């Protein structure tokens, strides 16, 4: 680990000011990703700004029937919160699908939003990586890319975003509240993470000196159906090869009335296609319609040398998750059999 100066922010304003003053500073919350990256010298901040004293640990219901989750609330606290378990079970399920209990107990929701890709070239400082060292090249494009992107990649970067929680937040339509030197602004989750394009070193649309304050979940969706289906190389404690988060409502005429579907493990950000979702509205929740939706969702997929299987796998995962949701038999994160 490279040496650094440690400071502890006593207020949000002080944290922002400290970010402005110190170049190459990083905010420390749970540390489960940052400390790991620092041990590999992938992240080499010269200053660590510890934000654990900031008043961002509350979960509160909002006046409009939604939920406001502070950036420092741990993943575990969100997943076991009674209101989340009852009204946003998709979010609880996705969180339980990720990492281990120990990591979820330390990791924060703000940190989850900010976590970096698990691309092995990004992690190995002896290899080039455009995300870690802009302009150095991307060995993943022709190298070990079994678990890399099939959607939205660029010539410079084929990394995927590793979060489960963010895939659920994408389906739910969360909003991220951030504060910077110029005040507070809100960013829809869909716009929070970005595609790699010409600047893969940027994971998010946060600008310098901004800090995440809260995540807003929109008002509870009554009588919705859901499933979070995560496909991985081992049954637990592994990153997704593909995952699908599904929120569905079906009306009295057995037609789909709302469909929010996000894919994980396939792109630089949780992947949604609202045009494809619109295709489902007003139509029966049937296999043939789910198939058609999955084809449109995955249109434009491009396989790399080792991951062509992911296109088919993603298609089947989406269809299965939609069927699980429609039949009110969401994937259990404990009994791992996929029904």
């Amino acid at each position, binding site marked *: 680990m490279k040496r650094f100066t440690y400071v502890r922010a006593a207020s949000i304003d002080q944290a922002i000011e400290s970010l402005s003053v110190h170049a190459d500073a990083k905010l420390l919350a749970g540390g489960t990703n940052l*400390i*790991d990256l620092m041990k590999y010298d992938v992240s080499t901040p010269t200053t660590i700004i510890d934000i654990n004293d900031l008043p961002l640990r509350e979960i509160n219901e909002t006046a409009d029937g939604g939920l406001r989750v502070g950036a420092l609330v741990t993943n*575990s606290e969100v997943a076991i919160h009674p209101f989340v378990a009852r009204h946003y079970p998709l979010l609880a399920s996705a969180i339980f699908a990720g*990492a281990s209990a*120990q990591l979820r107990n330390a990791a924060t929701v703000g940190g989850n939003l900010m976590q970096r890709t698990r691309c092995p070239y990004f992690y190995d400082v002896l290899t080039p990586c455009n995300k870690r060292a802009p302009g150095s090249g991307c060995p993943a494009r022709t190298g070990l890319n079994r678990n890399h992107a099939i959607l939205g990649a660029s010539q410079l970067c084929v990394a995927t975003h590793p979060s489960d929680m963010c895939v659920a937040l994408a389906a739910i339509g969360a909003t991220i509240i951030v504060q910077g030197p110029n005040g507070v602004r809100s960013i829809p989750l869909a716009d929070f993470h970005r595609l790699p394009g010409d600047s893969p070193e940027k994971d998010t649309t946060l600008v310098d000196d901004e800090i995440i304050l809260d995540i807003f979940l929109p008002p509870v969706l009554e009588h919705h159906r859901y499933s979070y289906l995560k496909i991985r190389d081992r049954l*637990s404690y592994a990153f997704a090869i593909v995952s699908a988060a599904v929120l569905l409502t079906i009306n009295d005429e057995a037609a789909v009335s709302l469909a929010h579907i996000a894919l994980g493990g396939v792109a630089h950000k949780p992947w949604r296609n609202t045009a494809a979702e619109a295709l489902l509205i007003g139509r029966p929740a049937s296999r043939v319609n789910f198939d058609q939706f999955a084809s449109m969702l995955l249109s434009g997929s491009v396989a790399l040398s080792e991951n062509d299987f992911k296109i088919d796998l993603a298609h089947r995962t989406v269809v299965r998750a939609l069927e699980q949701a429609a039949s009110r038999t969401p994937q259990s994160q404990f009994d791992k059999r996929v029904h």
Partner: protein
Amino acid sequence: MDAAPNTAHHVAYTINGVIRMATIEPWVTLLDLLREEFDLTGTKKGCDHGQCGACTVLINGIRINSCLVLAVSRSGSVVTTIEGIGTPDQLHPLQAAFVKHDALQCGYCTPGQICSAIGLISEGIAKTRDEIREGMSGNLCRCGAYIGIVDAIEEVLAAAPDANSLP
């Protein structure tokens, strides 16, 4: 806040009921603080990256990977390590169950397994065998004693489903 380089930080922890203080550099992890400064070597360093669970301890009763915690960040916390759980004459129920069910071979992962299992029981989520397996997935055992580990935890859970009834 002081922008000048700073390397010496005073930390104070209550570890297994004893207040301990040290002056450390900010990059020292809680795991290294326990092992190197306080000579509490029961907590093990396996991968040092949060993947194996050998370093699991309880902070304020909650299980975490001590290798991914900067000690300076969590100063003031109450920490329980394996040294604070049971004694050779009076084993903690989980320790007794691990012995009974052959839940270890080399024993290197065991302190982390025991701390993690205490955390799992107090979380109160895991009831079934599947749930125990999933809840313990952050603790690897290279000897492959997983069946014994789940057997041991299952037995203790069945006997004391309320975590508060455990010592």
